[in-house]
């Protein structure tokens, strides 16, 4: 019998939800109470059950912590898992993303605020800053979104260890084809509505990018107004927002096994960060964004909450999860046709990740 474990990172700590059938859930927590958990990752490579958490105390600062027993005990790297090199003059503000590498089971990637990409070769114990991106001549012109300036999306290419995409707010999409040594802005077709020239080379506020596992060169981007698809691994982007109730939102998710299935959680607008029509909903496309269906079964109405960029995920079996800023977590096990509650009455949910474990 397998069990599904959902890690729920919130403004005030970490909760874990466990289930054997994804219908009834037991909730464990809080752990890391009064510490913000904006990023987490389950590392299940080579049979591990390692949980990595990017946490931040309002008083005592940010770091990465690791647990090899699903949160019973935690390890913190004494010298600091992520430390900006002295010559940068920068200090870690928040760890926004943790991603196990698909090619090397020892490697973990991290994205931080301020905007930097980090590589760990020891399963997340210590990270080294990727100089190629930090030294990019665009860096001085990267800005800050409402949540801060951060690399929030890291997509290693499952077909090539040399290929990687990152996204940041603001700055947009950057890609490397040489294992991180050099990076190129890759925002052709993505609009930046907040600039006098709305089609700049970089500076876009891309909120999240997801890769289609069945067609790895196909990517989806939820932008700060705008929803896009790329069919050439991020080289160019085309709008797929027609048919959506709004083109604003933070998260985008793809089905692990069914090609061309993508989910969004729409937000009414930049200036009105509530669900469209006050109905919490998921927008689903099964044809790579050509058409969209509104999925609301099991979701509340009226609702005035919001779903943040990392507060959604899929599990290996196609379960779709998302958490809200008013502390609710939902799951769908039928591709979004209906949703049930995983957890309620938590602090505002910042990140959600799920793993199916033996």
């Amino acid at each position, binding site marked *: 019998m397998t069990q599904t474990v959902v890690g729920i990172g919130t403004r005030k700590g970490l909760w874990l939800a466990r289930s054997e059938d994804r219908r009834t859930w037991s909730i464990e927590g809080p752990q890391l109470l009064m510490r913000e958990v904006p990023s987490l990752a389950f590392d299940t490579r080579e049979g591990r059950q390692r949980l990595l958490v990017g946490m931040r105390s309002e*008083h*005592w600062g940010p770091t990465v912590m690791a647990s090899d027993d699903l949160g019973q005990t935690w390890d913190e790297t004494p010298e*600091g898992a992520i430390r900006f090199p002295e010559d940068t003059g920068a*200090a870690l503000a928040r760890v926004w993303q943790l991603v196990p590498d698909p090619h090397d089971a020892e490697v973990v990637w991290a994205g931080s605020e301020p905007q930097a990409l980090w590589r760990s070769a020891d399963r997340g114990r210590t990270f080294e800053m990727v100089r190629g991106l930090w030294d990019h001549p665009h860096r001085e012109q990267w800005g800050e979104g409402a949540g801060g300036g951060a690399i929030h999306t890291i997509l290693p290419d499952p077909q090539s260890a040399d290929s990687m995409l990152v996204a940041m707010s603001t700055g947009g999409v950057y890609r490397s084809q040489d294992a991180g040594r050099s990076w190129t802005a890759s925002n052709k077709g993505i609009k930046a509505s907040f600039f006098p020239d709305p089609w700049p080379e970089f500076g876009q506020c891309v909120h999240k990018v997801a890769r289609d596992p069945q067609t790895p060169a196909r990517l989806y981007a939820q932008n700060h107004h705008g929803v896009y698809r790329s069919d050439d691994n991020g080289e160019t982007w085309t709008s797929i927002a027609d048919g959506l109730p709004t083109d604003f939102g933070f998260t985008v998710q793809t089905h692990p096994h069914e090609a061309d299935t993508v989910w969004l959680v729409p937000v009414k607008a930049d200036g009105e960060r509530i669900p469209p029509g006050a109905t919490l909903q998921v927008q689903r496309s099964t044809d790579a964004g050509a058409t969209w269906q509104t999925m609301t079964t099991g979701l509340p109405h009226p609702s005035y909450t919001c779903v943040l960029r990392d507060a959604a995920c899929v599990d290996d079996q196609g379960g779709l999860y998302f958490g809200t800023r008013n502390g609710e977590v939902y799951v769908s096990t039928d591709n979004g046709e209906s949703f049930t509650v995983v957890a309620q009455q938590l602090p505002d949910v910042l990140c959600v990740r799920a793993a199916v474990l033996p």
Partner: protein
Amino acid sequence: MSVAVRVILPGVLREFADGATELAVDLPPESCLVRDVLDAATSDRPLLGARVRDETGALRRHVNVFVDGRDVRFGEGQETPVAPGAVVHILPSVSGG
């Protein structure tokens, strides 16, 4: 001749100092600024040090350090002199929600 200083830790930081409620620091008189006191108190306790100052050496925004009851932010920051027998408090500020 050295300068003896007491460093008082808040409860939440004591786990990073083997449970100690305070640390005794001895410094040479020519190097007795708040920065030196913090360096000495945390040099063998990196997890404690990382909670008080970031990797640039700056005091974390919501950590307050008092020397004999005076907040060093209203003095000379980490350059504030520390006199023999001084009591240095490290305390979290009132913040959050």
